């Protein structure tokens, strides 16, 4: 009975990345144009590179004043991804090109990504209603038309 409960709990934790409560500065600055992605989703080295190149942030200028950038960098270095998932550095430091991301979304067709209601794999909240809280549970996924 206990092992069954433990097994279920482990599975339930599998897609929930509820980490520490995000730094308010991180949520405000890094959530102003897109979801403030949970820190665990990228390796620490990737986060640092992104923060050092904010004036050309995936085609946009997302620059910060040095003090704010430093505060966010420090926080991300404390809570950024480490361990198994973070071992492979994604190309372009892009979450959506990480091998674990591609594996988890392997059944999503290209045409689905292109739907006007979704438009991009980076638009987590389109299908993951609790993405902002770091909750990506399969059971809660709802793919819009």
């Amino acid at each position, binding site marked *: 009975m206990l092992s069954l409960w433990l097994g279920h709990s482990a599975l339930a934790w599998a897609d929930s990345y509820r980490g520490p409560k995000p730094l308010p500065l991180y949520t405000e600055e890094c959530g*102003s*144009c*897109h*979801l403030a992605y949970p820190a665990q989703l990228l390796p620490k080295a990737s986060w640092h590179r992104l923060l050092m190149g904010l*004036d050309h942030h*995936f*085609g*946009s*200028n*997302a*620059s*910060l*004043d040095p003090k704010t950038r430093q505060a966010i960098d420090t926080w991300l270095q404390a809570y950024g991804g480490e361990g198994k998932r973070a071992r492979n550095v994604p190309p372009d430091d892009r979450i959506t090109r990480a091998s674990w991301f591609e594996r988890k979304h392997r059944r999503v067709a290209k045409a689905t990504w292109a739907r006007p209601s979704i*438009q*991009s794999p*980076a*638009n987590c909240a*389109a299908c993951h209603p609790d993405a902002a809280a770091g909750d990506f549970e399969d059971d809660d996924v709802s793919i819009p038309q």
Partner: protein
Amino acid sequence: MRNALFSILLIGVAPSWAATPAELLADYTAQAGQPADAQRGQQFFQNQHGKSWSCATCHGQTPVTPGRHANTQKTIEPLAPAAHPRRFTQASKVEKWFRRNCNDVLDRACTPAEKADVLAWLITLR
């Protein structure tokens, strides 16, 4: 020595003090050294400037309703002060977004005159 330190503290803090859109407009107009022109501001806002995005691309042609980020689809609250009470009330925030977004739209910083024109136009929107 303490006075000097206090002054430095004020300079550091001052840009973040709450302002009104009218006050920020007065600041930009003073820096520009010419009167702001709302019509020029509208054209500036709605036109492209050598790149694929205009301000309107994300903020909408008449930003009294929410806009959408062209890449991420994130909802952007209306930019016009009449449609959103906190718009243009914090100089540091305004400057941050002008810095980022003018670089995206124009590949350069906006001049004080351009900022004044755009703000003058946005203030007229209902």
